[in-house]
């Protein structure tokens, strides 16, 4: 009896020991790992798609974007109503009385680096993966380079020279090392190189199959490169790229202005690059849901067009009503009256985000309205501006007139410009940009560009608005405090005055 017991015990013990070998080798359940992502063609495609998806993020299409690209300018107010915590913070930002701890700038900075990191994964791992068609690999890398360039262009215009990160480091201690800032010239040189490479491999817009509508195209890379040149005042290079886009025949202006940002007219002939959204209750439209009119289920009412913008249009300019939805007007496109605006909000809303009623369920948070990043009208205006600066006045007036003609809609308004004085024409074109591209994410950075062309421009503009806190330091955003705090060795230099 005792022997049997002892044997039983030994058996149990042995059983225990023998099952321990594979017992502890446990794989993640329901979750794929980087084995798939980094080492297969399908994986690289997924990484690329995730990079596009990043553009939809709150930081890159929501608050971070509004604040960095519009609220600081004369075109937009924080919106919403006064008691809102976020509004108080954005007011400080608008009045140039904010600190490097400003949350929304921090979001925009992080958001762009998130985009860069995702693009880096594609560029870093694709070369080592076997592709059935090597042209696909080149195209994926080109798309990733375009998206990465979008991010760095936002960063360099906002902050000046920034750390140039082109690889994702996997070792934790190396990742924690602070990378020093590159100079503005280095970042622009990088952008020019990247975009030229992308232009070489990306197809024309018409070269994509229909189911890939929305991907980065040759035209998009050329337009972005044109913008990059324009910001450096390299007018002839800019003009060259603009002419490449114009002469490609791929793009044309929409017949009516209301179509430039409308849910029924997306990715059309004038569109060069848009951030794509979809009506999906599990995908948030971080761009649209924060705008609209508070209290109507169309959005939270942030980022309202300013009174300054409303008053700056020329008499009878139809674009004013297509860009700004005024309180008391019937609802755009569907005409309902008696709209109840929430208490304490500005009496203006960004009409480019409005959707016709009735809304399908959950619409404001999940609408399919895309955010237009670049369109053909911008190319025409850039061409006009460069032609003017280079002395090609008649070409400048030609492109300017193309934009105004479309805006005019055949009415006796927006007279054709005949001004030939370069400085005066320059200002006319700058105002045209303001009216044509209102609230599309151009104004704040454009003012900085104008300030380089005509030093003192920004100060005069903000003083006239009563925002007298504007000073030299506000030509650049401060490097986020959280980055400065992390850098204990003084590798990063803060921007002057901050």
């Amino acid at each position, binding site marked *: 009896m*005792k022997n049997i017991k002892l044997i039983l*015990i030994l058996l*149990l*013990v042995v059983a*225990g020991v023998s099952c*321990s070998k594979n*017992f*502890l*080798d*446990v794989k*993640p*359940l*329901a*979750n*794929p*790992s*980087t084995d798939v*992502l980094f080492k297969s063609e399908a994986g690289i495609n*997924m*990484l690329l*798609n*995730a*990079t*596009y*998806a990043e553009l939809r993020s709150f930081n890159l299409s929501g608050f971070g974007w509004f604040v960095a690209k519009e609220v600081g300018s004369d075109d937009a107010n924080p919106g919403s*109503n*006064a*008691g809102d*915590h976020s509004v*108080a913070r954005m007011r400080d930002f608008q009045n140039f*009385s904010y*600190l490097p701890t400003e949350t929304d700038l921090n979001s925009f900075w992080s958001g762009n*680096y998130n985009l*860069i*990191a*995702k693009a880096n*994964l594609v560029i870093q791992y694709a070369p080592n993966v076997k592709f059935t068609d090597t042209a696909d690999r080149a195209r994926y890398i080109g798309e990733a380079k375009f998206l990465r360039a979008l991010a760095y262009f936002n960063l360099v215009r906002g902050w000046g020279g920034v750390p140039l*990160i082109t690889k*994702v*480091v996997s070792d*934790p*201690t190396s*990742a924690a090392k602070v*990378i020093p800032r590159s100079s503005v010239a280095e970042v622009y040189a990088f952008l020019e190189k990247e975009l030229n490479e992308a232009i070489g491999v990306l197809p024309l817009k018409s070269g994509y199959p*229909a*189911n890939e509508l*929305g*991907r980065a195209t040759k035209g998009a890379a050329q337009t972005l490169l044109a913008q990059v040149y324009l910001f450096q005042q390299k007018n002839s290079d800019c003009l060259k790229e603009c002419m490449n886009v114009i002469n490609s025949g791929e793009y044309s202006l929409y017949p009516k202005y209301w179509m430039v940002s409308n849910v029924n007219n997306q990715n059309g002939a004038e569109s060069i690059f848009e951030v*794509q959204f*979809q009506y999906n*209750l*599990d995908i948030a439209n971080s761009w649209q849901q924060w705008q609209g009119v508070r209290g109507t289920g169309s959005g939270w009412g942030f980022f309202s067009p300013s009174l300054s913008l409303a008053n700056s249009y020329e008499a009878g300019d139809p674009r004013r009503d297509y860009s700004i939805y005024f309180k008391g007007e019937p609802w755009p496109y569907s005409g309902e009256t008696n709209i*109840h605006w929430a208490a*304490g909000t500005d009496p203006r809303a960004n009409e480019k985000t409005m959707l016709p009623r009735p809304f399908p369920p959950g619409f404001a948070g999940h609408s399919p309205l895309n955010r237009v990043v670049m369109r053909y009208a911008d190319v025409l205006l850039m061409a006009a501006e460069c032609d003017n600066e280079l002395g090609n006045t008649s070409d400048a007036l030609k492109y300017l007139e193309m934009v105004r003609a479309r805006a005019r809609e055949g009415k006796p308004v927006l007279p054709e410009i005949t001004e030939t004085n370069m400085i005066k024409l320059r200002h006319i074109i700058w105002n045209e940009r303001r009216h044509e591209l209102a609230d599309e994410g151009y104004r704040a950075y454009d003012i900085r560009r104008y300030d380089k062309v005509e030093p003192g421009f920004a100060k005069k503009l903000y003083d006239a608005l009563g925002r007298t806190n504007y000073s030299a330091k506000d030509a650049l955003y401060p490097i*986020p*405090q*959280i*980055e400065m705090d*992390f*850098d204990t060795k003084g590798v990063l230099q803060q921007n002057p005055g901050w």
Partner: protein
Amino acid sequence: MVMKKILFFIFLLVLNLQLIAQVTIQGTVKSVTDGSTLPGVSILLKGTTTGTVSDLNGHYSITVPKKGTLVFSYIGFKSQEIAIANNAVIDVILSPQSVGLNQLVVIGYGTVKKSDLTGSVSSVKGSAFALQSSDNPVMALQGRASGVRVIGSGQPGTSPTVQIRGIGTIGNSSPLYVVDGMMVNNILFLNNNDIASVEILKDASATAIYGSRGANGVILITTKKGSSLKPTFSFNYSEGIEKPFPFKLVTAAQYGQLINEGNINEGKAPAFPNPKALGQGTDWYDAAVHSSVVHDYQLSFNQKTKNSRYYISVGYHGNPGIVNKSGYNRYTIRLNNQYDLTKKISIGHNVTFVSSHQDNMNLGHVFGWLYRVPPTEPVYDQNGAFNDVGVGSNGNVPAAIYYTHNYTNRLRAVGNAYLNINFLKDFTFKSSIGINMQRAQNTNFIPVYHVGTGSQKNNVNSVYKKWSMVKDWIWENTITYDKTFGLHHITFLAGYTAQKNYSESLIGTRYNLFAEDPSLWYLNAGATDGQTNANFASTNAIASWLTRVNYSYQDKYLITVTMRSDASSRFPKGQRTGYFPSAALAWNLTNESFIQDLKWVSYAKIRASWGKVGNDKIGDFRYFGLATTSLANYAIFNNMLQVGSSVTGLVNTNVTWETSESKDIGFNLGLFNNKFHADFDYYSRVTKGMLVDIGVPETVGFSATEGNVGSVENKGIDMKVSFRETRGDFRYSIGMTGTTINNKVLDLGTTKQIISGWNNSSRTTVGEPIGYFYGYKAIGVFQNQAQIDAHATQATAKPGDLIFADLNHDGVINAADRTKIGSPIPKFMAGTNLMFGYKSFELMVDMYGSFGNDILNVKAVESYSSLDNFTTQFLGRWHGSGTSNTIPRITYGGQNKQWSTRWVENGSFWKIQTVRLSYNITSSLLKKVKIAKAQIYLDGENLHYFTKYHGSTPEISSSSPLVAGIDRKIYPMVAYYTFGAIITF
């Protein structure tokens, strides 16, 4: 010759007659504590197997020879031996065993005599839990077990925050729960009345046997086993009222006045032309929070026979909560039986089955809104429908509650089955298989509703269903060898355990349900458009070896050594195994001659221990590079989704345990025949390899990865003193527990600081405690412009704003002038336990307090619109020169709402934890209805908090030490007033 035989025979007969000359003794056995009769007392004729057992009335009758001794014994009481002499009636009064040194204390994987204990262990008897009103037994540990910090929550069916001897990590710092040897993560399945005793293992010598899970301390729970020689039924009945504490918000008139001031301060027009006319307004807190009735019933059966022990119980606990749809009710069945198959082999099981229903209240929609809704708005409009209050999407809280239908039903089985074999005289082999199986089904139905025309609405109805299951098993095998050789006593334990945990969830949602009746809250009733589903799972496994040696010499010198090795699937190959040793020495001075000379010292022991324990509470697949699977990474082209995926973050392929190295030195003292007891420990534990996000700059673009680079230290004192005495019919005891905590972060690797909390309120940095509050020091309020001008430059400050101290003396108030402004970790906790008893009455008064901890009053600072309500504290705001030097003028944003000492309050409190009056009914009526014992009691819990804190409760629980002490969305503690009875028959 025949004569001799006959004489011899007669002699034998006579002898036998003498032997058979027996006498029947009878009598009654009573207890000295309350004079109650004791059923089931064993009465044995010493040296024989002749015996009997006292009946329900404590009465016994036994036929024994005239000469002899009767031995009376009963569990928990000191045995008595009484000579039979010539008595026909022997009544006996038994005394309870004093805080017995021969009492067995449960430790990991075994038991040990209290006198042999070398580790630091607190014991709390089952009676403390049985009469407690909260559904979680751990609440009873507050103030009764030193070294343990318990922060309760008023929400039924939730686990309180428990920390033993400080906070060992910024990750999961909750202790390990072991119920009858089965390791579990929470004890929500336990019925308070089933608990026999709880031991809290605090130092490494006691916890190291649990290796990689012992770092945060171990709470060992032993449930009741069959012990009564007579089959005994026990019925526990209690009904109570739970009452919320009042929370004062301003009236509508006061609100109007404050909003007008706020608007003017923000450069806008006043909102109310005549605030006084607004009158009292709506008390929103009152509208949603109310008292309710709590029920607890239990019936148990307890018997110990020659070959088996039975303990079977069924119980019900129901608590509707102080807010509608926040309730919890639970049915439990417990079967703790043991069967002796032979003299050496026994099998048994301790298992419980639980069925519970929990209403899932959205804390944010209720306790995150009640203090914000304007009192100028009524709950119902003139048509009796819910009123649109115009603030937020859940502003009308009763409406939000009304339209919520979110509940979870759970079925759970927890327990183990074991086999015990005693062999070779001194060896015991035990093998046990434990399981924790749970199936939870969560249903969340949201109807179509519109509260007025505002934003509190839902346009599309939906049903969400989540089925989740947990399947954990643990197999433990141990061999124990216990032997005394002369003056040496040795116990040796060796064991092997394997454990596997598995959980899986399946989720489905549908929209546009056909109709909204509860019979249709199923996925098939919804449209197929927009349906979603999800399915995910997780698993981990651990294999361990353990061993322990207890050696004592002469019962004076004791040494314990333990070692455990754990290999876990959570860590990569090569880093899987951790070794956790410990050693402890103790000197039992009681038996030393110089102590024995001191008559007033009845017990004295000093001990010291050292050990290493681990913490493995991190996610299951931390070292894998996981890909994301969410839609957030899918691209959209041509209005169609295309699969996209990226990495979830940087990955550290070297991740491993957190290790805690712990030292303890202490003494246990008994004086005046153990009437006075003192237990005192000084503890110091350092956690190394704490998992900290290795800070990376934002430019890296992916979330930080974790590394074992951090270190935290906890030091302090953990003590308990008590004095008890019985004088005739009167008895009393006085006790006190005290714990101090000194928590300090020693290392965070390359991370300079961890920012956490709400709106970045909290920091964790080297040299400070975990999760302290960070902000400006407010040193007063600017009364006029001249003061502003005289002070360091505080941009945009106006009269009425807070004055922030210029800590770096640079003449400018900016981010550099922020500092540590408070800590949520208390400096010390204390509990007092008083008991007075007179005959059948007993009064118990227990108090508990926490001192030196701060609370961040987020409720007061949170406001997203110029419409939010105010607490009465705001009535003291600045509204003109000289009106306040502490509370600034009303503003909706700006510097007054920045984190500063204005929002950090002293969270120290002292509460009347329990007041209990009980009476043992001893009337002869009981005997007529065959009831052996009946006790009735009145009980009050959490009756009052003495505190300066302005929030609704100073007990703020939190899910993580990084967000501790933040009063936001807290379900407040409640007071209980209970009436109950315990009837044994």
